[in-house]
């Protein structure tokens, strides 16, 4: 109990620290660009943030962070507003962040930790307004009320006796009442679902400030002057995508500064302003969030890249494709690997993560004019929990939300009448669909249907007969390929962690299919 409270306290502390540090970092990066008479006010804000960090760290008993914040406060107090030297402060912020990472996971030095960031399971924090929270709580309360009504209805139904006169009528009525409850459930679940989804949206602004820092550092390191201009920071992004977007945009922005923007004298001789510009522009287009990364640098040297690729033995067909050339690891991003060894994942892995969520990256480049990357991500990620089912040698994913119950099935549980097979359960005859015959699966003698999954399909109760029940997995739902038509029963594809592609079942297409059962 005490332990849980401590954990919660620590989580609050870490979240607040993150926000204060971002605010400090942003202010420091901004300071050189504003008139010197406005700088004192901004520095005052930095000092206040540091003061809060100091106080909070002290309360948590983290004396090293407390004194670090105190030291930084002193540095800010001594800063000359006319010529602020921000580098030591940025280093201090980094040190602070590093300590926080250690606090989050004591084993963060573990190299595997770097790959976690594109994992679907990665936890991200969002802040919730109490108004939103109250509305969701109201919906949850309604669910509880509906649950209670359902409990009393099923209790009544269980007491019905098939021998009693009027049984048919009574059971018919019970079903109707249950159907009403189901409608009520849907009426509550839909706004609950969309409300929760909205909570998961994060404004891109937060991510942009992280990129500001990358531009600053990379420009300083390579002796270039580069301005980052951002537009559309208010564009919302699904929280599940924040890490993937941050990782990918980090690569793109770093790439733009290191490889795109020329050295100042090179730019001047090309009749360009000596300061290079990187533009980040985000907008919602239909069901997509488009994030453009434009730089006014030298453009990508296709021929140079192609030669480098061919020297490494890439096939010619691949070598002519700009996309492959840029995203093949080890071609364009060597320097970046040097600088940030151990941090983050490679460009190729970032691209894979973008694909896994159904996103794309496009590249356009014009020699001497610049380069444009377009990162396109879905507005909302269709992530769902699904049960993996085995039928013959095939595997399918069935969204948990459609499943009422799973059960093992023996010969005695089945009833065949009028060419239809039923699963007998709780006095009911539930139409049974053997998924194996439905999808013409080949079964070996050892593969036998042994389990049934109960679901409602178009309002009808159905049982799906399968061989094995697998794990429950969090899957990203990809729509079916639009060029090819697929038969009923399928709703999309997903790529499992193992790389295997699995078809997703459409629970709503089994309503009328009860006659397709092999006896």
């Amino acid at each position, binding site marked *: 109990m005490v332990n849980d409270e401590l954990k919660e306290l620590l989580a609050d502390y870490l979240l607040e620290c993150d926000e204060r540090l971002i605010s400090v970092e*942003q202010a420091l*990066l901004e300071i050189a*660009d504003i008139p010197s008479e406005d700088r004192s006010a901004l520095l005052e804000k930095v000092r206040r943030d540091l003061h809060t960090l100091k106080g909070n760290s002290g309360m948590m008993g983290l004396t090293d962070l407390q004194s670090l914040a105190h030291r930084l406060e002193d540095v800010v107090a001594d800063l000359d507003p006319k010529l602020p030297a921000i580098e030591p402060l940025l280093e201090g912020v980094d040190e602070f962040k590093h300590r926080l990472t250690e606090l989050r996971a004591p084993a963060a030095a573990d190299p595997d930790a770097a790959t976690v960031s594109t994992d679907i399971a990665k936890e991200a924090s969002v802040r919730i307004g109490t108004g939103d929270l109250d509305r969701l709580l109201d919906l949850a309360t309604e669910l509880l009320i509906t649950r209670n009504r359902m409990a009393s209805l099923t209790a009544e139904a269980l007491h019905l006796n098939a021998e009693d006169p009027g049984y048919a009528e009574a059971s018919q009525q019970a079903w109707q009442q249950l159907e009403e409850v189901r409608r009520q459930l849907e009426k509550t679940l839909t706004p609950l679902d969309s409300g929760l989804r909205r909570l998961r949206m994060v404004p891109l602004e937060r991510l*942009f*400030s992280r990129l*500001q820092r990358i531009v600053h550092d990379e420009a300083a390191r390579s002796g270039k002057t580069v*301005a*980052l*201009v*951002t537009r559309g920071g208010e564009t919302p992004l699904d929280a599940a995508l924040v890490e993937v977007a941050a990782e990918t945009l980090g690569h793109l922005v770093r790439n733009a500064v290191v490889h795109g923007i020329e050295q100042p004298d090179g730019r001047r001789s090309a009749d360009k*302003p000596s*300061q290079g*510009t990187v*533009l980040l522009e985000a907008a919602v287009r239909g069901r997509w969030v488009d994030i453009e990364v*434009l730089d*006014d640098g030298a453009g990508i040297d296709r021929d140079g890249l192609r030669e480098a690729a061919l020297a490494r033995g890439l*096939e*010619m*067909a*691949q070598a*002519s*494709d700009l*996309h*492959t050339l840029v995203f093949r690891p080890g071609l364009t991003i060597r320097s970046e690997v040097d600088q940030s060894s151990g941090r983050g994942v490679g460009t190729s892995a970032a*691209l*894979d*993560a*973008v*694909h*896994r969520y159904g996103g*794309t990256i496009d590249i*356009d480049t*014009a020699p001497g*004019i*610049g*380069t*444009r990357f377009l990162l396109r991500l879905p507005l909302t990620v269709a992530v769902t929990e699904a049960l993996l089912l085995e039928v013959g040698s*095939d595997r399918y994913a069935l969204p948990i939300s459609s499943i009422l119950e799973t059960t093992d099935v023996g010969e005695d549980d089945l009833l065949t009448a009028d060419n239809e097979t039923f699963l007998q359960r709780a006095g009911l005859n539930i139409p049974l669909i053997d998924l194996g015959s*439905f*999808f*013409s699966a080949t079964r070996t003698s050892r593969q036998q249907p042994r389990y049934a999954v109960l679901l409602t399909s178009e309002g009808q109760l159905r049982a799906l007969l399968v061989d094995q029940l697998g794990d429950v997995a969090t899957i990203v739902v*990809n729509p079916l*390929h*639009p*060029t*090819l*038509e*697929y*038969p*009923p*029963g*399928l709703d999309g*594809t*997903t*790529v499992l962690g193992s*790389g*295997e*592609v*699995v*078809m997703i079942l459409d629970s709503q297409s089994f309503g009328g299919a009860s006659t397709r059962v092999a006896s």
Partner: protein
Amino acid sequence: MASGDDAPGDRLLTFADRLRRSEEEDAEREEKPEIWVSFQLAGRSFALPVMHVREFAPIDRITRVPGAPSIVRGVTNVRGHAIPVVNLRELLGLPGQSPADPNRILVVDYQGRWIGLVVDRVDRVLTLSPSRIQGETSIEGLTIADNILGCYETDDDSLLLLSASTFLDRRETTG
């Protein structure tokens, strides 16, 4: 953070325009395919424009799509994408059968949509002169005439030229 209305932003707008214009020129250039990738299928040589060929990708396992037309071999994972795999041999009505377990597929990218083709072997990348492409072709015994863009005679080979839209523009496929 710099706001969107300052000088570098405006400068970049013109830059973006210029970049977009040069894209259009690129698109015009791409209208005239000259570089092709040739491959073998049922003892004949075929070719696709290189700009529509992503790669000859190694694949692991193909997942069956029950009830799909027989030319659809299934779906597989190429760089995180689940893409359909099509037996080109059967699609073109060529004799013989595609290998049951291909370990590489020719990934065709048409307007951002990917599809995998099962072919016997990928040969090489070659430059063809557009003026020497013969439009009229009739190959006896094959039902592929609709899919053939033209024919091309090289010194030692006769290539049948395919268009990527053949596989990706059609809404229905027959099995």
